[in-house]
Structures are given as structure tokens and as C-alpha cells.
């Protein structure tokens, strides 16, 4: 197994280099008739990061646990398994990060943000993140060009060994705070071309973990409390259907998510009661079809239909009806067409068009029932030669909103260009420098525009100019250090017309305004390496550091002028390592987040303490005839600190989890 992996790695490095320039003269190993089981590493893009879930996060349960290890990501985590988890990438708001599942965009038209706590990690192979459209692959939907950052979740594609057309995997994860997470996966080869997989999982947690409540003061009086109303009951089922032949590819997915959760709420001093409930249901069907014509022309089509229902219940809302019970429904229909011409040697051009229809309804008087049609059209081209390559695209976005209640029609149309260039700096080294510019904007969400008494229909999109420069070096240094990659990115973002919620008329009633201006200068540095320390020990590790100076430049008269924006640490970093030994694998992760402020004014009262989170895990695979039994144990948050990512939402302290998976 060890040899296979090493060879696979070398193979990938060679592939990477080949993809980059045909005549690369890196250490060559001639490989013939070699079968690689596993996914290939595509680390030739300087602006791309990737985390292999099976390597590093075998025992994890939610996508959010992985995403926070990307460099430049700040996870806004409201604590516990059920809490809302959104990301801020490089100091930008959550709406600037697009998420796609197997190449098809996930969307929440109500809020414009994806809750990573809802996404199951079962059957996920790897997650990658792309900043500033720096990808070389231009054979993608127009919509995927529209965001400043993209997180890509890749589902496991079934692979079958000779004579075994069916794989079954049954697993259960048990964790503290009465958490249990059984999962089931079946993969079948239906014919030479067709295969399918069905993955189902259920997650239950009481979420009643202990934490320390602080009351402040010189002697800081404290009490030990248990989190209330943090229960989670979530069911996810995903059906995948794959077709593959020499010129056609098809992938169909049906996804169902259903959750009945408590909302644990902020830990309010002297009042820890919470009784709000949140029920979420999401169902979507997506199909992706690719056809490779003769004459180097490829075509891709995506179709998706999405329905989501959210119910928010508050039994202690002191209104005349004795509580609050809001139902939100949203729907999406999505069609994407992409045409690519790839000249065999040097350049590619693609034209893509996406049409998205959204609507939303809510059981509240005066909610205008908005419908939105968005048309994205993108022209992209990429050219590469021995010493440099360039990728440029221009995206046109057209938005047409109609409100059903009062028939107000609004149009918006905008061009947004992006260009990215990469240069090889040395003839024999894979040392590259890339520089990119992107103009993007985020559309106001339905809540921003139409939410009764809060929404503001005159909102403009929030705009963003970003400039990024990245220096990257990849090398197979030695047999003991077969893979080494270092990348340093510096970036500058200018956010204008930032959509912010501001109290209008009184503190009860907040409204949305295009008010904020934010300048962000930052630096991301990451090192990934593989060390073959001994025949029995291989170490994979990754170190990330991020510096973010994100300042509010809205108004010189304000007390927050040139202050760091909330929840954005100047310094943060993380490290993760896996020690693969012949007997077991040892995982270690470290998350360090520096001091930051919970509100816009950078004063001591608003300061939030830095935190560390160390976690370790051990896993071992037992091969029993044709079956595989994997057992893993994680010990999380070793320092046992109930640190707060979001103020007054303490996270779980020292906790454990056990994972047992049986595959045959």
C-alpha cells in the first residue's frame, strides 16, 4: 500500500508538470500499465487549496470542521453541532463565498449564505478552495465565475475492483454530548458505463455540553453550565448516478436533508433559557452531462431543481398569538450550458450561460413574494506556453426581480472581468508567480431586499475589487521529502457599497443599507509537505498562516474609522498532520485564532481573547479477507477551553468521538 501511494504521488507530480508544460524535466519515473486507486492531486494552481477528507478528517462529521483549515478562512461558528456556521474568506462577508457540490452551485436565495453545519461529510472525498478565479479550468458554469471565492465539495466517485461490482460501507460515529451518527453507503456497478451510489446518514445530538459561564470581574466569578436547547436531529440521503464512456459523462444527484434542531442561542448572563426551534428541509435534484465532440469541442449541461423549507418557532415570543411560527420557502430552477474549444496545444476558449430562477415565500403580512431571474453569461479564455499562462474571463450578469404582491419590477445588469497570469520563474524549478485581478459583486439577497420592514428595495449590489499575487514553489526534494509545496499570497480587497444592517428608526427595527466601505490587505502563507521518515512512517502535514488587516473606512467621523472589522483576527493559523505508520495513523490538528473584536469599535470592552484548539486522533484499518474494518478515536479540544468564536456562543470543551466503519 505504501509503495502504491508513493508511486501515485510521483505519478501525480509528473502529471502536474505535464499538464503545465509538456517538456518538463523533473525527476522522471517511467510508469507503465499502472493502476491508481484514488483521486489525483491537482496542485498546479497557485490559488487553490485542497484538503483530503479521508486523510485528515476521517472521523469528522460536518463540512465545517474541514473548511476552517483552509488558509484565510474564518469560520463564524455559533457553537455546537446544530449552530449556524458560515465562512469569511480573506476578510470578506459570507456572501462572497460560493459553494458548489460536484461542480454545481449550492444556493440560498433567502440569505445568500451557505450554512456549512448543514452539509454532511459522509461520502465526501475532498474539499478545495479557490480564491479570485485563479483556476485554469475554464470548462465550468458561468455562475461559478461570479464569486470572489469558491469552495468545492467533491463526492466520492465509486471505484470497483475486478470482480466486485458492489461496495457496501456501514459506519457509526459516537461522540460526547450524546451524539450518534450512523451512516450507510452502497455503491454498485450497474453496467460497464453506469454506476450508482446511495449514501444515507442520521445525526442525533443532545448538544448539552458543559461550559464555563463567566461573569467578569477581577476574580472572574464563574459557574459551570450545560448548553440548553442544542439538540440536533438531522437526516441526509444522497443518491448518485454516474455514466462514463470515452466521450460522454453524466452525473445525476438527488439530495435530501431534513433537520429538527433546537437553537441554543447566546449564553445570556443570568438568563440561560432558550426555546427557539429551527426545522430545515432541503431537497434538490441535479444533473450534469458532458460530451466531448470531435475537433476538440466539449459541451456541458447542468440542470438543477431545489426546494428548501425553513420553520422558525419561538414559544417565548411575547406576542398576542403566544409565539412565533414562521415558514420560509424557497425554490430554484437552474440551467447551465457550457461550450469549450480546446486547442490541443496552447489555448482554450469557453462560452457559458446560466439561467437561474428563484422565488421565496414567507407567512408574514406584506412580504412581497419576490421572484428573480438571473442570467449569467461568461466568455473565458486560457492560453499557456512554456513560460507563462494567462486566463481571462468576462462575466455578464443580468438580474430581473418581480414582486408578486405589488408587481414591482427591477432590472440590474453588470459586467465583471477577471484576469489571472502566471509566470514560471526558473527553468528547472516549478517556481511560479501569479497575479490576478477580479471585479465581483454580490447581489442583495431576498432578505436584504424584501424582508418585511427590514429589507430595502433600493439596495445596490455590494462590489469588490480584488488584486492577488501568489508565489508558489512545488518540489519533490528528496526521497525522504517527496512532496513539498510552499505558497505565499498577498492580496488587497476594496469592498464598496457593503450591505450592512443598521438600526433605523429605533433599535428594534434594523434595515439594510449600502453603507460600508472596507479595505482589506492580507497575506496567506501555506506549506504542505510529505515526509517519508522511515519505511514504516510517512507524515503528511500542512501549515497555514493568515494575516488580515481589514479596516472600516466608511466614515472618518465614526468611532470605528480605520478599525479592524468585527470577527476578523489580524493573525490566525492552523496546522494539521497525519502520521501514517504501518500499524495505525495518528492525526493532529491545531487551530490558532488571534485576538479580534466582536463589534466595530476596537476597544478593550469589545476584545475577544485569542484561542488555540488542539485535537488528536488515532485510526487503524483492519483488513479481514475482502473486508475492511476502520476504527478511529478523536480527542477534540485538548486544552478544554470553551472559547468563543462568536461572542457568547461557547464551544464544546474537551470531547471525544469514536468512529467504526465496516466496508465490504
Amino acid at each position, binding site marked *: 500500500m505504501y509503495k502504491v501511494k508513493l508511486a501515485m504521488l510521483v505519478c501525480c507530480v509528473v502529471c502536474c508538470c505535464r499538464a503545465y508544460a509538456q517538456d518538463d524535466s523533473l525527476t522522471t519515473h517511467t510508469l507503465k500499465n499502472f493502476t491508481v486507486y484514488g483521486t489525483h492531486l491537482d496542485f498546479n494552481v497557485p490559488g487553490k487549496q485542497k484538503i483530503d477528507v479521508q486523510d485528515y478528517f476521517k472521523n469528522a462529521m460536518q463540512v465545517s470542521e474541514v473548511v476552517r483549515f483552509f488558509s484565510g478562512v474564518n469560520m463564524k461558528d455559533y457553537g455546537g453541532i446544530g449552530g449556524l456556521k458560515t465562512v469569511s474568506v480573506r476578510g470578506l462577508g459570507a456572501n462572497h463565498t460560493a459553494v458548489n457540490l460536484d461542480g454545481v452551485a449550492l444556493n440560498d436565495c433567502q440569505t445568500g449564505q451557505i450554512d456549512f453545519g448543514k452539509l454532511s461529510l459522509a461520502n465526501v472525498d475532498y474539499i478545495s478552495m479557490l480564491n479570485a478565479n485563479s483556476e485554469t479550468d475554464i470548462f465550468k458554469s458561468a455562475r461559478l465565475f461570479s464569486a470572489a471565492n469558491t469552495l468545492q465539495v467533491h463526492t466520492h466517485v465509486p471505484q470497483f475492483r475486478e470482480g466486485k461490482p458492489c461496495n457496501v460501507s456501514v459506519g457509526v460515529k459516537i461522540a460526547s454530548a450524546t451524539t450518534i451518527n450512523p451512516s450507510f453507503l452502497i455503491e454498485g456497478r450497474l453496467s460497464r458505463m453506469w454506476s450508482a451510489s446511495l449514501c444515507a446518514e442520521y445525526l442525533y445530538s443532545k448538544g448539552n455540553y458543559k461550559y464555563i459561564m463567566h*461573569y467578569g*470581574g477581577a476574580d472572574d466569578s464563574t459557574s459551570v453550565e450545560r448548553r440548553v436547547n442544542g439538540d440536533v436531529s438531522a437526516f441526509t440521503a444522497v443518491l448518485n448516478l454516474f455514466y462514463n464512456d470515452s466521450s460522454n459523462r453524466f452525473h445525476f444527484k438527488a439530495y435530501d436533508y431534513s433537520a429538527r434542531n433546537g437553537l441554543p442561542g447566546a449564553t445570556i448572563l443570568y438568563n440561560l433559557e432558550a426555546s427557539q426551534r429551527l426545522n430545515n428541509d432541503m431537497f434538490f435534484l441535479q444533473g450534469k452531462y458532458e460530451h466531448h465532440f470531435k475537433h476538440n469541442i466539449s459541451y456541458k449541461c447542468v440542470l438543477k431543481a431545489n426546494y428548501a423549507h425553513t420553520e422558525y418557532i419561538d414559544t417565548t415570543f411575547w406576542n398576542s398569538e403566544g409565539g412565533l411560527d414562521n415558514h420560509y420557502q424557497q425554490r430554484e430552477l437552474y440551467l447551465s450550458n457550457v461550450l469549450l474549444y480546446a486547442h490541443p496545444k496552447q489555448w482554450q476558449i469557453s462560452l457559458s450561460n446560466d439561467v437561474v430562477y428563484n422565488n421565496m415565500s414567507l407567512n408574514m403580512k406584506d412580504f412581497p413574494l419576490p421572484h428573480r431571474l438571473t442570467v449569467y453569461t461568461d466568455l473565458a479564455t486560457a492560453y499557456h506556453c512554456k513560460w507563462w499562462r494567462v486566463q481571462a474571463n468576462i462575466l455578464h450578469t443580468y438580474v430581473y426581480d418581480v414582486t408578486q404582491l405589488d408587481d414591482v419590477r427591477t432590472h440590474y445588469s453588470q459586467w465583471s472581468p477577471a484576469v489571472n497570469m502566471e509566470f514560471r520563474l526558473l527553468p528547472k524549478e516549478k517556481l511560479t508567480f501569479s497575479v490576478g485581478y477580479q471585479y465581483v459583486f454580490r447581489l442583495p439577497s431576498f432578505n436584504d431586499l424584501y424582508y418585511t420592514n427590514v429589507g430595502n428595495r433600493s439596495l445596490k449590489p455590494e462590489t469588490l475589487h480584488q488584486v492577488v499575487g501568489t508565489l508558489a514553489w512545488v518540489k519533490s526534494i528528496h526521497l525522504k521529502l517527496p512532496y513539498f509545496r510552499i505558497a505565499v499570497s498577498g492580496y488587497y480587497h476594496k469592498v464598496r457599497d457593503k450591505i450592512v444592517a443598521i438600526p433605523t428608526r429605533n433599535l428594534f427595527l434594523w434595515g439594510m443599507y449600502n453603507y460600508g466601505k472596507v479595505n482589506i490587505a492580507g497575506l496567506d502563507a501555506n506549506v504542505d509537505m510529505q515526509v517519508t521518515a522511515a519505511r514504516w512512517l510517512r507524515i503528511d502535514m500542512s501549515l497555514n498562516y493568515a494575516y488580515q488587516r481589514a479596516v472600516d473606512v466608511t466614515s472618518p467621523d465614526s468611532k470605528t474609522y480605520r478599525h479592524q472589522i468585527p470577527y476578523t483576527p489580524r493573525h490566525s493559523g492552523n496546522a494539521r498532520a497525519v502520521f501514517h505508520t504501518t500499524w495505525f495513523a495518528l492525526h493532529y490538528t491545531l487551530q490558532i485564532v488571534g485576538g479580534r473584536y466582536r463589534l466595530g469599535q476596537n476597544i478593550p470592552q469589545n476584545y475577544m481573547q485569542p484561542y488555540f484548539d488542539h485535537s488528536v486522533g488515532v485510526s487503524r484499518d483492519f483488513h479481514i479477507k475482502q473486508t475492511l474494518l476502520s476504527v478511529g478515536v478523536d480527542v477534540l479540544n485538548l486544552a478544554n477551553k470553551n472559547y468563543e468564536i462568536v461572542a457568547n456562543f461557547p464551544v464544546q470543551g474537551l470531547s471525544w468521538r469514536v468512529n467504526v466503519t465496516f466496508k465490504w
Partner: protein
Amino acid sequence: MKKLVFKLSVVAIAMSVLVSCDPDKKKDNALFNNGILVLCEGVYQQNNSTISYYDLDSDLAYPDVFYDKNNRYLGDNANHMIAYGNKLYIAVDNSNLIDVVDMTTGKSLSQISFNNKTFEGVTVGNPRQLTTYKGKVYASCYTGHVVRIDTASLNIDKIAKVGANPEGLVAVNGKLYVCNSGGLNPDYQYDSTLSVVDVNTMQEESRITVCVNPAKIAAGDNGYVYLVSYGNYADIASCFQKINTNTNTVEKVYEGIVASNFCISGNYAYVYGVDWSNYPDVQSFVKVVDLVSDVETGDFIKDGTTIKTAYAIMVDPNTQDVYISDALNNATNGDVYCFDKNGKKRFSFEAGINPNTIIRVNQK
């Protein structure tokens, strides 16, 4: 690290008033002899309600005397504060309690909590506003009640059922006048009544129909009760009204005054309102209303000082100085301005976030 934060905050205190002195010595001086107490509600769910104190003798501002004296935070969303019988009563809405503080020592005497309790069989809580009458303290609770607190035992001795989401309340001639805001009614259909409650029986006796969304109420020396209704934030504007307590009817609606809150001093009412129409250039106006002639006499501020988001007002009964707080953008520390009776700024100081109540203390 706590110590570091503490030290940093002390440094910030010193810097904020640009006076160098020994920090520890300064902290001990913060007794409420002659100064201004400002309740700052903070930001919802941030647990950062504070009580700022400005010492008129030394001209020093103390960001949080409650924290200094009690070694703990006040709570979340403290909404109102009154001084009565050498005690401070603080309605801490989201912490669901009323904190009672000894004004001589600054120490909390009791937290009258509504958590996990029922009174006379019903759930009562989320205290909003306070008033006093004949040895008792009355608090409106967002659950639709008024509670009566015995100031000797500091216990709730009786509750009254009123309308939806009561806010301001005042007692005149043995009757409580309680603003039923209906702030949480479905579809923003606010209430528009005052409940009249007998202070002895704590029974609601009648209702008075007023402008929509009544919120702030106070009694004049002339026996009338004055009231601000916020309106519905859409097509119905806020208004300032006069209520005859003999007939229990609205006797006058003052036309053309944008009203958020007011304070009565002698024959004058100082009514402020916030103009949001040129957002983000928000500006507040303070109008003086002559309560004898019932005529608005124009802007109070004469020296061109601009207040963005006025959030509380208080008139010093002795000097007639007018204190107005400015909550700015509602998420940063606010400022408190002191004007002389002619509307000229005397001084200002920084308070905490959302300064909603100003009290003059003089215990010399």
C-alpha cells in the same frame, strides 16, 4: 489575560478623559456623590450593558461603575434605570431581572430574577421600564404585565395584567398609566392603548386610546400625563400627546413634532426626535414645548452642536442643565452632552453603547 484586559480598560478610561492620575485611586473615587449616571444597554445578546458615571466634581468619566463595584457584568440589554430611596433599580430586559443597587456603595443588593418562576400562576418577565409611587417600584414586563416591587423586601408583591408588550409607565393619583406598545404583534400591527391600573388592587380598570405604538410616558407638574407614541415606522408618524387624567382622554396632539422621547422640567417639555430621512446623515432635533401655552417654542440647541441619534434626555432639576445622549450608530460607545438652559453646550463625555437613561445623583 483578564488582568491585561482590565489594565487596558483602565488605560482607556484614563485616556478617554485625557487626565493622568493613578488608576486605582481613581476607581475608588467613583462614588455617586455628585454626578451623572448613565445606563447603557449595549448591543442585544452581547452581555455588555454598563453603567457609566461622570463625576461633576472631578470631571472624570467612568465607563462601567457597576462592573467596578460588583466584579461582575450587569447583563444583557438593560433597558431602564431609576433612582429611588437611595437605591438604583435597573431593568435588565434580556437577562430577565431587575438589579437593585445601593447608591452609597454601588453594590448590588439583589437581583430580582424572573427566570424559571411564575407569579400568581403566570410567566412574567423581560422588564422594560420602571416607575415609582408611594414606596413601591413598578416595572412593565414585555410579557404583558406590570409588577409591583416592595422596596423594603425587594420582592415582587403583586402583578397586574395589562396590554401587549408594555413599555413606559407612570403613576398619577393612585393610577398607573401603562403604554401598551404591541411591539411584537404580528405583521407590525402595533397597539394603541394605555392601560389604566389601580395601584392598590393592581387591576386594569380601563384603556385609553392614543396614537399608535405608545412608548414613553411622564407626568407633568400640572396633573397632565404626556406621552410619545412611535407610530408604525411606515405611514403613521410618531407623535407627542397630552392626556387628561381626570377624563382619561387625549386632550391634545402636538402637531409637527417628531418625537422619540422627552423630559419634563417645570412648565417645559424637552422633546427630541431623530430624522432618518437623509440616512446616513442622521440628525436629531430637540424641541421645547411650553406646557402652559401648549406651544412649541423651537429648537433647544442654539450653538450648532449636532446630535446624531439622540437616545436619552434628562434635565437637572437644580441647574436646569439638559443632558442628551447620542447613541451614534447604536453599536459604538455613545456620547453624553450637557447643555446649559440656554441651549449652549457645556461639556460632553463618552458613555457605553446605547446610553438610554440619564440620572442626576447628588448625595452630598
